[in-house]
């Protein structure tokens, strides 16, 4: 069934969009990532203009994250306090990110930089997670040799402005989470994604949060950042296609619920290794696009570049 999208000005198959929404929704619920880094390239692939794809994707992420976070709220796996601290950083970062983005645009080649950002960050994050999870799995398979060493104290614990995050069982300075929020906000604005795939590992490895609260907390923060982005796109570029968003999010919210269920049945290590694999696959594909000669060297775009 073809549906004409009023803003994108293309006709697409409604079932294809529902299916894509569901697939990305499942991943979103399982891993606590918004799924933007998967959905945006998929939308390009089916012929949605890039500007519309990026803006509409932000709106869809709001829906799937909201659906996902409610499930986590009921299970009390959202660290609200940590989420708010990260959000403060995130909004500062997003504002900075827009400035950086405009600066890069004035230099030209912003497309390339965005792509390189994707390849480098997805590669590093995916690689680290993959190695770490493999080690964890190997350790888990060996017979238990008593509890592992307690988390060692690092520089993170020596900083001032300490705050107690009860849900996460942490007593750390607010500086690292705010910095993580800022970094993720900057990247989110530049790369046009929610930033979950960077925030999740940062929360686990940098802040030492327990994996089970990481997903819900990350979703909580993503809702606000992407809602902000949606409004910004809708009012400045007029590129949010509500019809496209509705089709994607109907599939997406259902998928997110299923994903959350799957997520609770898998072990944390398994979850992490799957996410790492996924991140590496997307990274590999983007890297190949940069390295292999494209079939069509030319591309068309709107003139006048705002």
């Amino acid at each position, binding site marked *: *069934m*073809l*549906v*004409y999208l*009023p*803003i994108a*000005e*293309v*006709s697409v198959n409604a079932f294809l969009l529902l299916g894509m929404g569901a697939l990305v929704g499942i991943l979103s619920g399982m891993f606590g990532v918004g799924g933007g880094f998967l959905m945006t390239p998929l939308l390009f692939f089916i*012929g949605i203009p890039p500007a519309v794809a990026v803006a509409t994707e932000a*709106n*869809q992420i*709001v*829906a*799937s*994250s*909201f*659906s*996902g976070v*409610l*499930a986590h709220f*009921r299970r009390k796996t959202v660290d609200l306090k940590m989420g708010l601290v990260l959000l403060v950083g995130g909004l500062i970062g997003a504002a900075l990110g827009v400035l950086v983005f405009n600066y890069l645009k004035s230099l030209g*080649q912003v*497309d*390339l930089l965005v792509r390189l950002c994707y390849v480098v960050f997805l590669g590093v994050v995916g690689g680290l997670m993959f190695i770490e999870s493999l080690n964890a799995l190997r350790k888990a398979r060996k017979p238990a040799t008593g509890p592992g060493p307690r988390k060692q104290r690092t520089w993170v614990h020596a900083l001032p402005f300490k705050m107690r995050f009860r849900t996460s069982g942490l007593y750390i300075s607010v500086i690292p989470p705010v910095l993580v929020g800022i970094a993720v906000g900057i990247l989110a604005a530049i790369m046009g994604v929610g930033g979950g795939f960077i925030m999740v590992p940062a929360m686990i490895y940098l802040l030492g949060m327990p994996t089970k609260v990481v997903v819900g907390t990350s979703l909580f923060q993503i809702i606000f950042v992407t*809602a902000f982005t*949606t*409004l910004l*796109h*809708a*009012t*400045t570029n*007029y590129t*949010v296609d*509500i*019809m496209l*968003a*509705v089709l994607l*999010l*109907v599939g997406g*919210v*259902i998928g*997110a*619920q299923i994903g959350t269920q799957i997520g609770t049945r898998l072990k944390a290590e398994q979850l992490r290794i799957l996410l790492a694999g996924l991140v590496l696959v997307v990274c590999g594909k983007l890297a190949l*696009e*940069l*390295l*292999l*000669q*494209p079939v*069509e*060297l*030319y*591309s*068309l*775009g*709107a*003139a*006048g*570049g705002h």
Partner: protein
Amino acid sequence: MARWLILFLLLPIAALAEEVVLGLSHDKVSITTRFEGSDILIFGAVKREVEIPDGPPLEVVITVAGPSEPVMVRRKGNRFGIWVNVDAVEIDAAPSFYAVASSGPLDEVLSDTEDLRNRISIGRSIRSVGAPDTVPDAASFTDAVIRIRQEQDLYQQLEGQVAVDQQTLFRTAISLPANLTEGDYSTRIFLTRDGTVVSQYETVIDVRKVGLERWLYTLSREMPLIYGLMSLAIAIAAGWGASTVFRILRNQ
């Protein structure tokens, strides 16, 4: 000089000798939610005050052009092992849709001079004035626009697709693809003899979004903040709805 003058004086008279009477299956294309493209039947007759002139037969060329807009064409090149956009040329105006149907091979039914004057062939419908000096082969960028849009069925060259009966009746069908931009689609009919245009006629096909499509599009342009908030409200309602439904399902 005198010969040219006579030719110019004769031209309007010749043009009046044969005139187009046109019919369209529909002069309005409504883009609805279920829009899957549209076939437009263009048909007509040649009205004559005189007998059919001797010599080469009457040929018909029909063009349908969507609104023209500037297009930025970028070309990738290999730099340090990766493929990046290297050159860019802005095409001043290229129609968003362009179909040219003719009763025979276009270069036979239409002389190059007439093509140049009336901008009939696909290549001539695109206007590209100046490319930056850094790009020596600007023509290949125009070719790229044609190639890419031909693949998307946005540019169509339909040679021999206009049927002409008795040098009087003609008809053709143009299929507008689903990925259509709205606007005024100017439709031109040229009657030619021996490559020269003897008469031409112009009309407009109105391509418009209607109903829900129209309403959403207008809202997004005129009240973007409301539109944005509405998008968010729908997103949050959908997220909440799905979550609630699933919880109820699970509790049963």
